[in-house]
């Protein structure tokens, strides 16, 4: 089911996006109006990361995908090379499906929106800049975190 078929959710998503990110986020869809996403450019420490925050068919049960609209170095960690949404680009690996122990990192369909995903993207991009500069990712890997 597309995000636009749930009018209440659509209103919630747009309201949250405008309140948090103003007009910097742009609402987009493909020509067939089957895929919907927000375009936004994350600016961090002198670098720009154009991203798309795209809605999967089962949204909000599943979180949005954060897709880079820019080519990242081939060895960039914490990314997925493909996803479920029919858009090209590397995906940010920002949550773990089925996560239950670290509540801060669990997608909550009732309260979380695509606007929050842009906030998440800022944290990820900040970590990326540190990794780019030092070779070390500054945020713990899931496998190394004690719940």
């Amino acid at each position, binding site marked *: 089911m597309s995000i636009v078929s749930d009018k209440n959710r659509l209103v919630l998503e747009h309201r949250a996006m405008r309140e948090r990110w103003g007009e910097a986020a742009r609402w987009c869809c493909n020509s067939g109006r089957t895929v919907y996403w927000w375009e936004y450019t994350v600016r961090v*420490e002198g670098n720009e990361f154009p991203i798309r925050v795209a809605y999967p068919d089962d949204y909000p049960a599943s979180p949005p995908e954060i897709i880079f609209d*820019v080519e*990242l*170095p081939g060895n960039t960690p*914490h990314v997925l090379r493909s996803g479920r949404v029919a858009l090209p680009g590397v995906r940010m690996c920002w*949550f773990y499906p089925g996560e239950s122990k*670290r509540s801060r990192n669990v997608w909550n369909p009732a309260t979380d929106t695509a606007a929050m995903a842009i*906030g998440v993207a800022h944290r990820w991009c900040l970590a990326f800049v540190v990794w780019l500069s030092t070779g070390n990712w500054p945020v713990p890997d899931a496998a190394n975190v004690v719940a």
Partner: protein
Amino acid sequence: MSGSFKPISPERAEQIRQALQRARASNQGIAIDKQTGQFTGTAPLNQGAQEKVNMIGKFDTHYRG
């Protein structure tokens, strides 16, 4: 679009690394100036409505793809 990313100084990287870990440990947000994109520190999440500051206090663990 091919990315051309600029590294930051080792001192700045260390400053950000410590802040990211401190924020995670204390459940605080990351503050980034919306105009300049510069990281400005950490702050409690209830200050999230401040102008020019992006507060992010969730999804602070990154997973391997």
